[in-house]
């Protein structure tokens, strides 16, 4: 998953689009997936995200996201499926449980919604510099800089956490900790892995806050950003796509 949430340069229309338009498009696809009642629309939105991702040159991110979120979706699908009792029973199971047609529809929609909500955000972050996102949130939406900075810093820290986790695992492995084994053994491994991770992350966040303060963080004003983000014709086109997606989700 490392690198999935990071910006990946490129020259596509979406790379050049206004950050807020990209945010709006991602939000519409995410929310649209939850608003619609049609599984077909859910799948269409998912397909749109996957194809869009490959078209943007972010195929690697799409695959990683599908692998990561897909595993979670599959797990939730399997766990939920026997407990949905509505609908016609297709496969009866012990203890009064069973697989129903309604259960299949519900769990498939749930998985499609979850995947459909993950991908647009990953793609949006893949084509948007976090600083551009922060600048537009502050300059155009009037969100106080410190809040916008906190949001983007939280996103920035996710891959950092993965790197720290990898380092901790490598360090513990080098010291003879065996990471393979039974479930109870893995539970016992949580403290030696998580404590150093938490300590190093807390330290890093403190140093990071200090570095920001030393470089004038608290002086930042709404108009401090150097870059300007004018809306262009292609932004208008993308907004029209947003409208179409929203309409499709509401109608269906």
């Amino acid at each position: 998953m490392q690198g999935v949430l990071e910006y990946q340069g490129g020259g596509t229309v979406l790379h050049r689009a206004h950050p807020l338009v990209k945010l709006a498009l991602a939000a519409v696809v995410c929310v649209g997936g939850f608003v619609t009642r049609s599984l077909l629309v859910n799948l269409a939105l998912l397909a749109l995200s996957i194809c869009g991702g490959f078209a943007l040159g972010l195929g690697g991110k799409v695959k990683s996201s599908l692998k990561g979120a897909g595993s979670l979706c599959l797990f939730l699908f399997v766990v939920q499926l026997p407990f949905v009792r509505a609908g016609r029973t297709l496969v009866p199971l012990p203890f009064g449980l069973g697989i129903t047609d309604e259960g299949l529809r519900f769990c498939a929609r749930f998985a499609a919604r979850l995947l459909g909500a993950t991908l647009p955000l990953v793609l949006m972050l893949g084509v948007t510099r976090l600083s551009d996102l922060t600048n537009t949130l502050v300059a155009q939406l009037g969100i106080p800089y410190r809040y916008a900075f906190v949001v983007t810093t939280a996103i920035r820290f996710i891959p950092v956490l993965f790197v720290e986790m990898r380092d901790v695992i490598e360090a513990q492995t080098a010291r003879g900790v065996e990471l393979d084994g039974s479930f109870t053994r893995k539970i016992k491994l949580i403290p030696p892995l998580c404590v150093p991770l938490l300590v190093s992350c807390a330290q890093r966040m403190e140093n990071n806050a200090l570095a920001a303060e030393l470089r004038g963080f608290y002086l930042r004003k709404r108009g401090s950003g150097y870059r300007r983000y004018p809306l262009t014709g292609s932004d208008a086109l993308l907004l029209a796509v947003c409208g179409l997606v929203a309409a499709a989700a509401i109608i269906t």
Partner: protein
Amino acid sequence: MDSLILLEGVSFRYEGAGSRALDDVRLSIAPGEFVGVIGPAGAGKTTLAHTLSGVVPHVRRGDFYGSARVAGLDTVTASVVELSKTVGCVFQDVESQFVTTMVEDEVLFALENFDVPRDEIPARVDRALADLNITDLRSRGISTLSGGQKQKVALAAALALAPSALVLDEATGELDPASSVQVFGLLSQLRRERGTTIIVIEQKIMLLCAYADRLLVMDQGRVVIDGPVRRTLEQPDRLLSLGVNCPRVTTLAARLREKELYHGPPPINLDEAETMVREAMA
């Protein structure tokens, strides 16, 4: 000459700590001086750097005694932000100093915050990147850089603000030898061309000696030696007893002097060492 940095009887004990991290430090640094700070681990070097930037006592809390003034600002009453307009810092843990994800954004960050006029910003960014020879990294993500490249980016971000004083706390630790020489050459150039005061905490003592005017040796929170580089290097035994490794050529000079084979000043580079050896052999 008036001091840019003046510390009078500065002592500091971190909250909950038993001993003082700084103990009665008296120090005066003139504008445009290039000062090297050396000493064993735990000597108080980083605390000294934090004192100059106002991190001590504003962020790292504790008991602060004495007076520390930087460019006329009392570091106790002036805010960290006020001080950071004068003092640029690059600290040891370069990884945690990045506040953005892209190289260009990192250099821009402070310029935007300090309201540098818009028309000046592109030139400042270009120059900072060019000075560190990292113009080609401009559009790269920071996470994709090597340790040495990251240190150069952190330095470029500090340089872009054109501070009156630059404090580097082991900021070249991950650089290869050639890049370290390049960075020290740049610092020397900054001092020469812009009159920037340079304070470098460094373990690469030979390199430090080649560029600094003056060396401060710290031990247990105190400045135990403060003087011109050559005079400091004339005490190799004392430096060794403090846990500081003297450059080998300087140690050799001391031994030759003991045997009355050499009478000149301690050499601080290979050329001078060669001259010394020729004199000793003659």
